[in-house]
């Protein structure tokens, strides 16, 4: 477990820089720090989807990168690929594709996914090879470290770190509770 005495909180508030699903005035905001090559994040991915479906517009979901580069050799480039897709308006499509194809994150696959999603592949490839989104991913990572992310996935509910289980029932219960408190 990642439970800790002091409640850790997001040091970088959700803002314009973020990739967001759901309305800005949603009752509750869920932020995930994740790694596309992390098996636990892969398992959390459909759980978050199911919760989004259940809560609908009452939930705003934000995804930030926390690639563990030493443990996961493809994680950094996959994160940059999602950002490169985001620059062409397809962040979430790439995010979903990467989690659904965690076992195939080599460079040539990333290019293939960009083609599948109808991106400008030449631009995508150039930006990926040029490391254009490396600083952006690094900024996400650093904001995670200073917010008390100590592994992946780590979730924050309305800015406070969620230290309990992220299985469907407990995560949904925590979100519902936070939604009520706000109102």
């Amino acid at each position, binding site marked *: *477990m*990642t*439970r*800790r*005495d002091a409640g*850790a909180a997001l040091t970088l508030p959700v803002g314009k820089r973020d990739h967001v699903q759901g309305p800005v005035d949603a009752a509750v905001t869920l932020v995930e720090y994740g790694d596309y090559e992390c098996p636990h994040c892969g398992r959390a991915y459909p759980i978050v989807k199911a919760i989004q479906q259940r809560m609908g517009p009452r939930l705003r979901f934000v995804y930030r990168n926390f690639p*563990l*580069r*030493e*443990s996961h050799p493809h994680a950094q480039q996959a994160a940059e690929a999602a950002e490169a897709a985001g620059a062409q308006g397809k962040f979430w499509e790439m995010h979903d594709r990467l989690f659904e194809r965690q076992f195939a994150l080599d460079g040539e696959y990333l290019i293939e996914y960009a083609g599948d999603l109808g991106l400008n592949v030449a631009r995508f490839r150039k930006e990926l090879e040029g490391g254009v989104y490396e600083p952006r991913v690094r900024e996400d*990572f*650093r904001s995670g*470290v*200073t*917010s*008390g*992310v*100590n*592994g992946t996935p780590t979730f924050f509910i309305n800015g406070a770190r969620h230290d309990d289980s992220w299985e469907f029932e407990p995560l949904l219960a925590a979100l519902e509770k936070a939604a009520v408190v706000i109102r």
Partner: protein
Amino acid sequence: MADAHPLPAGTQAPDFRLQRAPDQTVSLGDYRGQPVILAFYPADWSPVCGDQMALYNEVLSEFEGYGAKLLGISVDGAWCHRAFADERKLHFPLLADFEPKGAVARRYGVYRDSDGCSERALFVIDGDGIIRWSYVSPIDVNPGADGILRALDAVASEGTPA
């Protein structure tokens, strides 16, 4: 964490010399002039430690941004540390507080007599060898790196006390 009495901020950090490899030793004094992070952990190979050391491995460049040196310490021997560091591809030294067992952990107030290992404890020491921050985490909890970064930030912005 209730029973631990880690040396508090403001204390001179006790110097020590420990093996960092089967054929190499290191002392705290070697790092005088730069901040040092001492990360005591209970044992190589236990899953939570692995996560903690893996995280620090990732955050190393942030620590280095403050000119700080990270040293992991447990009661494991130098050969055990070598196997652990190789397997996890750790890019910082692991010191063997092995003989006499736990002697350094005792001097820092973070030895667990009941378990024969150290607490999961963090110390940030400034360039003058003064402890600027200490923290003991519940033994099964990864303390993360946020507290270390805040302490390094404070050391960097306040400078060292006269």
